[in-house]
C-alpha cells in the first residue's frame, strides 16, 4: 500500500505522526507546562481560523474581516452545548445538532424550490433562506427538545462517562462549526454581492455586531449562562492534543482536497477574474458563498477547540481589533499558501503571546502592540507577497494544472 502512495503523501503522514507523538510525549511527560500547552492549542486554533480566511481571501479573493465573528459563534455555541451538558441539560445538543440538520434539509428543499424559478433576486433568496432557518430552529427549540431530549440524555447516560463525554465534545465541535456555517451562509448571500472593499467593511461590521450581541447575551439574547460582558465561565476543559491535532488535520485535508478538485479550480478562477470565470460557465455567486461558508466552518471549529481549552470566554477577546489577526497572519504567511499560513499562525501566537509576554521586561507589554505594526510595515515594504510567497510543501502542492507564476493581484480595478 505504501508503494502505491505518492512520496509526498508518505512524507506528510510520517511528519504528522512524528509531530503528534513528540508533542503528546512532551505533554504527557510534563516537559511542556500548561502555559505552553495553551500556546500550542491556541496556535492550532488560530491556524485553523487563518486557513479559513486564506480560503476566502487568498484563494477566492473576497477580502473578509469577519473571521473572528464566526470564530466567536463557534466558540460560544460549542461552549454552551457542553456547559449545558455538564449541568445535565441536553437541550444544547438537541437544538444545535438537530436544528442544524433540519436547517440543512430545509436549505436543500429551498434551493430545489428556487431552482424552479428564474429571475429571483438576491434579497428574495435571502428571505427564503432566513425564513427556513427561523422555522428550523423554532421547530428544534419548541418541538425537538421535549421530544428527543430525554432520549438523548438516556442514551448518553447508558454509555460510560468517558465515552459519552467525548461524544458530547464531538457534537459540540460539530455544532459550533455548523452554526458558524449557517450564519456565514445567511450573511454571505446578500453581502458577497457587494464587491471587494464593501464586503470587507460589511464583514467588519458583522464582527462588531457579533461582539455587541455577545456583550448582551443575557439581556438581548436568552442565554443567561453566557453572562454577557462578564464573560462565560464554567466551560469544561476537554480539549486534548489528539482533538486539536485531528481538527487541524481535518481542516488541512478538507481544504487541500477541495482546492485540488474542480470546485477548488472554480474558487481560484473566481479570484483571478470573476467575469471570465462566469463566461466559462462557473456560477461565481455560488462559488463565493461556498468558499465563504467553508472558511467560516473552519473558524467555528477552531472556536470550539479554543473555548474548551481556555474554559473561559469573554466578548473582548473577539472584538474587531483582534479580527485583524487572521488577516495579518494570512498576509504574513503568503496569500494562497497553506503552509505559510499554518507556520505563521503558530509562530504568531508563539511570539506574541508566548515569548514576548514572558521575556519582555516589566512594563514593556504595551510595546508588543507598537512593535508588531512596525514589523508589519517593514514586511509590506520589503516582501509584500508574504514570507512564504506561494510555497507549499509537496503534499499540499497541486499537481495539475500548474499555477501561473505571476504575483497575486486581486481586484486592481475600482469598485
Amino acid at each position: 500500500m505504501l508503494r502505491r502512495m505518492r512520496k509526498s503523501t508518505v512524507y506528510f503522514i510520517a511528519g504528522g505522526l512524528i509531530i503528534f507523538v513528540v508533542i503528546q510525549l512532551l505533554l504527557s511527560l510534563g516537559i511542556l507546562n500548561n502555559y505552553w500547552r495553551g500556546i500550542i492549542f491556541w496556535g492550532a486554533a488560530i491556524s485553523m481560523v487563518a486557513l479559513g480566511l486564506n480560503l476566502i481571501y487568498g484563494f477566492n479573493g473576497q477580502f473578509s474581516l469577519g473571521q473572528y465573528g464566526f470564530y466567536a459563534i463557534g466558540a460560544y455555541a460549542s461552549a454552551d452545548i457542553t456547559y449545558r451538558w455538564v449541568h445535565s441539560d441536553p437541550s444544547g445538543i438537541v437544538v444545535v445538532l438537530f436544528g442544524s440538520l433540519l436547517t440543512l434539509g430545509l436549505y436543500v428543499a429551498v434551493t430545489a424550490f428556487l431552482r424552479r424559478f428564474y429571475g429571483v433576486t438576491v434579497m428574495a433568496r435571502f428571505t427564503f433562506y432566513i425564513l427556513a432557518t427561523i422555522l428550523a430552529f423554532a421547530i428544534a427549540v419548541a418541538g425537538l427538545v421535549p421530544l428527543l431530549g430525554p432520549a438523548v440524555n438516556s442514551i448518553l447516560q447508558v454509555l460510560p462517562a468517558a465515552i459519552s463525554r467525548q461524544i458530547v465534545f464531538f457534537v459540540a465541535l460539530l455544532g459550533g462549526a455548523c452554526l458558524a456555517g449557517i450564519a456565514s451562509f445567511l450573511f454571505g448571500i446578500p453581502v458577497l454581492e457587494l464587491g471587494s472593499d464593501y464586503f470587507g467593511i460589511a464583514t467588519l461590521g458583522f464582527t462588531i455586531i457579533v461582539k455587541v450581541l455577545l456583550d448582551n447575551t443575557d439581556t438581548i439574547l436568552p442565554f443567561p449562562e453566557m453572562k454577557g460582558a462578564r464573560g462565560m465561565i464554567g466551560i469544561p476543559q476537554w480539549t486534548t492534543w489528539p482533538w486539536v491535532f485531528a481538527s487541524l488535520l481535518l481542516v488541512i485535508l478538507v481544504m487541500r482536497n477541495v482546492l485540488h478538485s474542480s470546485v477548488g479550480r472554480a474558487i481560484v478562477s473566481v479570484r483571478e477574474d470573476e467575469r471570465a470565470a462566469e463566461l466559462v460557465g462557473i456560477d461565481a455567486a455560488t462559488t463565493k458563498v461556498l468558499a465563504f461558508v467553508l472558511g467560516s466552518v473552519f473558524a467555528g471549529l477552531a472556536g470550539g477547540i479554543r473555548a474548551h481549552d481556555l474554559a473561559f470566554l469573554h466578548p473582548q477577546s473577539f472584538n474587531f481589533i483582534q479580527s485583524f489577526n487572521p488577516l495579518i497572519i494570512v498576509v504574513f504567511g503568503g496569500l494562497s499558501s497553506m503552509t505559510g499560513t499554518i507556520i505563521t499562525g503558530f509562530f504568531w501566537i508563539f511570539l506574541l503571546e508566548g515569548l514576548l509576554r514572558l521575556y519582555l521586561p516589566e512594563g514593556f507589554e504595551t510595546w508588543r502592540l507598537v512593535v508588531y505594526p512596525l514589523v508589519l510595515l517593514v514586511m509590506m515594504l520589503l516582501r509584500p507577497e508574504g514570507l512564504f510567497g506561494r510555497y507549499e510543501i509537496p503534499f499540499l502542492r497541486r499537481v495539475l494544472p500548474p499555477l501561473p507564476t505571476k504575483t497575486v493581484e486581486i481586484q486592481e480595478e475600482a469598485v
Partner: protein
Amino acid sequence: MAQTFSRPAKNGAMMQRHNGMLLNRFSQGFFILLGLFVVYVLGRAFLQNPKVFVEQVLNGLQLGFIYALIALGYTMIYGIVKLINFAHGDVFMVGAFTSFYAVATLQLHRWPTWLFPGVSEGLMILIGTVTVILTAMLFSATLAVVIERFAYKPLRSKPRIAALITAIGVSFFVEYFGALPFAFTNNYITYPRPFEVNVYSGEMISPLLVVGAWVLFVISLLLSGWFTWTSRHGNVQAQTWKRHPLLQFGLLFFGFMAVVLTLTGVKIETGGKVWDLSVSNVMLIIMGASILLQTLLQYVVSHTRIGKAMRAAAYDKAVARLMGINVDGVITATFALGGGLAGAAGVLYATAFKQVHHLMGIIPGLKAFVAAVVGGIGSIPGAFVGSLIMGQTEVLAAGFISTPMRDAVAFSLLIVVLLVWPQGIFGEPPAEKV
C-alpha cells in the same frame, strides 16, 4: 443584482421554470413590513413624547455633522487612491489629543489675553477656540501627510492588499503608540472645553434671531432658484453663481439654523405638555464649523486648480499624469485636506462628548466610512448626506429600538443601502471594464 442559479435540470429533461417575480414581490413585502415596523416604533415614540424624539433628532444631527467631517476625508482619499485609509480614524484621535494638550497644558485658547490683556471675554473665546481648532487641523494634516509619505507612497506600485495591510498597521501603530505612558496613556481623559457650555432654552432665543435665520435662508433659496431659472434660459454666468460657495453655505447653514432655532425657540403648551427644547452652543458651533468646512472643501474641489487636479486624478490617474498633473502632489494634498478635516472633527467630537481616549477614533472612523459609502463614495455631498443619515440612524436606534445595538444598526444600514443602491445614494455607476 439579479442572480439566478441557471443550472440545467438533471436527467437531461428540460425543467419548466417559472417567473420568479412573485417570489421577489414576496420578499419585498417582507422587508417593507419590517421597515413599517421600524416606522411604527419610531412613530409611536414620537407621538408618546414628541419633545424627547426631537431632542434625539437634534443629537443625531450633531453626531452626523461630526461624521460628515471625517467622511469627507475618507471619501476623497478613497476616491483618488482607492484605499480604505484605516488610519484616518486615528488622525481624528490625534486631532482631539492635540486640542486637549493645547487647551489643558498650553492654555492656547486664552492667547489673546497674553497679548492684549484688555480684550473682551467673548472675543477672546472666539479667537482662542478658532486657534485651537486650527492647531489641531494643522497637526492632523501633518500627521496624515507623514503617513502618506512614509507608509503609502512606497507601496503605490505594489498590489492593493499591501497598502490595505499597511493602513491597518499604521492605524495600530498610532493607536498603541498613543497608549504608551509617555504619549497619551491608555486612560479615558476628561476633556477641558475651550469655552463654557451654555444651554439656550426657548426664552433666551430672541424671536429676531429666528426670523433672521429664516429670512436669510429664504433669500439664499430664492437666489438659488433664480439662478437656476436664469441658467435654464441661457444665462451662462448664472450657472457659476449658482455654485458659489457663499450661496451654498447660506443655504445649508441658515436652513439648518432656522429649523433648529425654530424647534427650540418656540414654546407651546398643549394639554398639560410643555414644548420647550433647549439647544447648547456646542451644537450650534459643531453645525456651523462642519458646514463651513464642508463648503470650503466643496469650493476647493470645484473652483481651484488643485481641486481640478484632484478630480482628474480621481477619474483616471494614468491619464492625469499624461496631462502633466503631479499626481503624487495631488495625493499628498488630498491627505492633508482630509487630515485637517478629521482633526477639526476630533476637536468637535471631544468638545461634544468631553472625553478623549487613545482608541476613540476607531468606531467613529468606521462609521464615517460607512456613511461615505452610504452616500456614494467619491462624492462630497454624498458624504454629507450619508453622515446625516448615519447620525440619525444611530441615535434613533439607540434611543428607541435598542441601546446596545446602535453599532449593529449602523452597520446593518450599510448592507441595506448597498443592496438597494449598489453605488450609494449619490454615487456614480462605475465604468464597466472587461
